[in-house]
């Protein structure tokens, strides 16, 4: 089916060009406005070259410096753009309408870049694995291509190979994530989706320990991800059939009935069946990425199997990017359809909150627990999405910023708790952690309390913002369900705290590795952001509030 749709669209594109032959102009690219993405892409490409030309010994340091510099420069570019008014008064479409440079895009890009920097720092951590022969090891396999347990693998380990490709890979993923919430037409959105997904599939497979689990996670993620991409693409084709354009704003104006019809598509344009089915399929593709029920089933397996630094980065940044794209799609392309999608999103939000919270209660693995918790949080964020108001947008933006830092920090703590087999993620191993390492346990408790939405943490401010927007948007029922789900969720966060502080440590239990300055920075940043956003959120709420309007 999708091939016919593709052919169909190619043919019409050709017809378009023919009709408008004399109107062809050289494409105008606003390089300055696209600079954050371009900088990250450039850094990624240089990273590939570094892999090829820099001696193995120097690669790790070079890659780390390059990635952090690139991301920081991109962040500086975002700040410059925002300070120059591109988030508010000068918001516009760039690159011939393919990419939007507006408030939500810049806010989310800034968040993704900061989270990306923290993610890269955890990727580079080499102090946690017990070093063999004086070498230092990171969380990634010596050689991704070597079969687990094979002679090849042993050789690679003995030779001290390291997989420094992870740095360019993560940079490519970040570049995709930067475009994802900013994409103003469906094709750009799809390209961004693939750019961000493919490196992540690879990264998931690169764990140093428990490689089979890691590879299984990657395959699951890839297969389900490919499936959802297909859905997405099919939906794009149907929407094109409906509107005769891939542009989000264009689709909106066709829905509102104010647009010119493309003669070639006169038969299908305005066909509501195409619109509804296409819209549903595109939204499905995005809901898969945010991990909303019923498209959540990959989350726990992937979160558990992937190397923990990758999980932390992915859990935070992918969610930010995907919610950005979902918001833009629903608010820019489909606002005229909101009476159709709102009830559906209500249902999805309620299901997501309830299933995430309830299933999390039975989990015994920290990473799976955090995975289900991320599902529940996706539900809370969806409650803000259905508000369909500027407050809804800004509350979602704020929630995403708050949530992503907590997530990165929490997974960074997970990397520290280790036993002989690597990370000890089974909850029974965490018993008595508070007695053995009060500081680490206290920090993790802060993150858990933020997840639970206890006041004076960023989680509470975010939750309140989202619920407030939902209540004002007339979704009081969602608030009540959200509150009940929060109570259920609180139970399992508290259970971990109980385990850490009030259980006797096991004799053979895991130890807490002392991290290098890299991971310490990440955790400290997580705690600071969690507390500051909890106690003094006003500045950031203002920022999110100013960024709450999409350009069309």
């Amino acid at each position, binding site marked *: 089916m999708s091939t016919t749709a593709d052919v169909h669209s190619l043919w019409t594109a050709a017809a378009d060009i023919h009709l408008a032959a004399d109107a062809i102009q050289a494409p105008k690219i606003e390089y300055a406005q696209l600079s954050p993405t371009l900088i990250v892409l450039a850094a990624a490409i240089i990273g590939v070259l570094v892999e090829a030309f820099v001696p193995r010994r120097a690669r790790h340091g070079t890659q780390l410096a390059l990635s952090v510099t690139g991301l920081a420069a991109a962040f500086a570019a975002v700040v410059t753009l925002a300070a120059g008014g591109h988030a508010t008064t000068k918001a516009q479409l760039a690159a011939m309408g393919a990419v939007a440079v507006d408030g939500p895009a810049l806010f989310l890009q800034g968040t993704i870049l900061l989270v990306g920097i923290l993610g890269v720092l955890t990727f580079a951590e080499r102090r946690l694995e017990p070093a063999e022969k004086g070498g230092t090891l990171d969380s990634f396999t010596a050689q991704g291509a070597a079969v687990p347990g094979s002679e090849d693998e042993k050789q690679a380990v003995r030779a001290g190979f390291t997989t420094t490709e992870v740095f360019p890979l993560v940079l490519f993923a970040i570049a995709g994530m930067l475009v994802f919430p900013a994409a103003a037409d469906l094709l750009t959105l799809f390209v961004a989706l693939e750019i961000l997904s493919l490196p992540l599939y690879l990264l998931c497979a690169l764990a140093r320990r428990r490689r089979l689990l890691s590879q299984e996670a990657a395959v699951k993620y890839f297969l389900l991800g490919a499936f959802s991409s297909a859905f997405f693409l099919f939906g794009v084709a149907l929407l094109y059939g409906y509107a005769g354009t891939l542009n989000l704003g264009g689709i909106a104006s066709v829905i509102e009935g104010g647009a010119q019809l493309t003669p070639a598509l006169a038969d299908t344009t305005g066909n509501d069946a195409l619109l509804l089915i296409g819209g549903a399929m595109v939204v499905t593709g995005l809901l898969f990425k945010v991990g909303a029920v019923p498209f959540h089933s990959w989350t726990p397996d992937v979160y558990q199997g992937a190397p923990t630094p990758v999980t932390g980065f992915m859990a935070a940044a992918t969610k930010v990017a995907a919610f950005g794209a979902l918001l833009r799609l629903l608010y820019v392309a489909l606002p005229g359809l909101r009476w159709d999608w709102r009830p559906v999103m209500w249902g999805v939000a309620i299901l997501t909150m309830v299933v995430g919270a309830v299933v999390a209660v039975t989990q015994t693995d920290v990473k799976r627990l955090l995975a289900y918790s991320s599902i529940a949080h996706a539900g809370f964020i969806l409650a803000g999405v259905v508000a369909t108001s500027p407050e809804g947008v800004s509350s979602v933006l704020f929630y995403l910023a708050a949530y992503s830092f907590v997530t990165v920090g929490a997974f960074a703590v997970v990397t520290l708790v280790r036993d002989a087999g690597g990370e000890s993620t089974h909850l029974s191993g965490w018993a008595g952690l508070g007695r053995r390492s009060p500081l680490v346990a206290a920090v993790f408790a802060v993150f858990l309390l933020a997840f639970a939405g206890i006041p004076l943490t960023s989680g509470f401010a975010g939750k309140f913002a989202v619920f407030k927007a939902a209540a004002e948007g007339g979704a009081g029922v969602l608030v009540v369900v959200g509150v009940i789900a929060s*109570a259920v969720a609180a139970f399992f966060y*508290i259970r971990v705290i109980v385990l850490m502080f009030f259980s006797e440590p096991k004799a053979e239990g895991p130890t807490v590795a002392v991290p290098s300055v890299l991971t310490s920075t990440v955790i400290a940043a997580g705690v600071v952001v969690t507390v500051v956003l909890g106690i003094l959120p*006003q500045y950031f709420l203002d920022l999110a509030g100013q960024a709450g309007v999409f350009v069309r």
Partner: protein
Amino acid sequence: MSFPLLTATALVPAVGAVATAAVPAARRTAAKWLALAFSLATLVLAGAVLARFDPGGDRYQLTESHAWISSFGVRYELGVDGIGAVMVALTALLVPFVMLAGWHDADPLEEPEPNRRWRPTQGFFALVLLVEAMVVISFEATDVFLFYVFFEAMLIPMYFLIGGFGDRAGERGEDEAAKQRSYAAVKFLLYNLAGGLVMLAAVVGLYAVTAGQLGEGTFSLARIAEARAAGDLAFDPTVEKLLFLGFFLAFAVKAPLWPLHTWLPNAMGESTAPVAVLITAVVDKVGTFAMLRFCLQLFPGASEWATPVVLVLAVVSILYGALLAVGQRDIKRLIAYASVSHFGFIVLGIFAMTSQGQTGATLYMVNHGISTAALMLVAGFLISRRGSRLIADFGGVQKVAPVLAGTFLIGGLATLSLPGLAPFVSEFLVLVGTFSRYPVLGIVATFGIVLAALYVLVLYQRTMTGPVRDGVRGMPDLRARELAVVAPLIALLLFLGVFPRPVTDIVDPAVRQTLSDVHKTDPKPDLTEAAK
């Protein structure tokens, strides 16, 4: 700008908590003294609040108002009325005693070899100060959101106090004790968190209503009262009832009111006596206080609508708590159930909607705080001597430790509201206030007093009189530190028992204000009836 006295009363213990937590592991004793010093400084500040408070002045005094989270319409607004000022003073008064009584509570957790990271003593005292700071600010907050933040946040330090420093007494073994303790802590947290989250929905709802009608959401009591007086703000009756229920549920869990009380006996039974005092005498008072301040003020119509049900629940609490107290075999659980009964009286007084009832209820909060503290702390001293909480393990204590027995008796008599001791006045006021409007409930509630006499006297008889039991023989009497805890509390009980005026004078104007919020006046005495 004047000195922010109210902020200081909350900030001093908060700073104290941080300072105490920072004391190095080896300097345990210094940490204790430091914490005590901070709590005494808070007491001085609370005294200053009382001294500066003018009962004839504005409704809320010593007010502070700053922008906090303007996106949510939240302001950092503090102010005390008479009730708030008295509650702040009660909190500040009790905390030093809690600390003194719990001077050695964290010792069993200390490890024999020095451990730089493990500092339970510092943790215990820091947590107590943190709870104090949060309780104080929730008595002072006149912004609903600000109140909510600390109302919820105080659960966390409280939770660690219950679960981390529980009662190690008994023959059940450390494993079983740890299990019970963490069960109690989790139960405490989940009940209160669930109540609090329901309240969160109501807080969000309040925002939606004010934002819808005033153009911008607000949580400020003053702003809401103003808008209401000007006719800009009027709650839809259904919405008002729902919001009232959201708030009330949270406060009823905290207070605790039957049938939401079941966490209290667990929490008080498993925690150490000083922490139990902190729960029942300090933290739980926020629940009853908040009913007065928020439920009645914000939702007068719904309060009136709910009154019959609340009153019945209160009377059930009184009788149920008292009956279960009679049947307890465990001293601390007995006191916990007695508290459930007493909280029933407080709620009864509040919702009787008469000035005697509400003044009595406020006075009751103070007196219950002091009397329960006295009884529970002495009980704690008793339990730590014997290593058991079971009543059956005691007997004849008055022969070996007469001072302990004597103070226990006074605490007990205060609990059963013996005339001459402070709780009598408040209980009498509550009953009079109830009787003048709801005679039947007043009569039924009186049975609670009869039962109180039963459980207190039987407790005393079984533990203190009779032949000296084996485990009791050679039991030391109260030490100087312990006496320093109990003596001032008993003196206060006696003083307020004969001369409650200082408290009632401060409280009265606030009560009249609250009654005028709910459009209630005291029922006139029926003179024709009296003339016959």
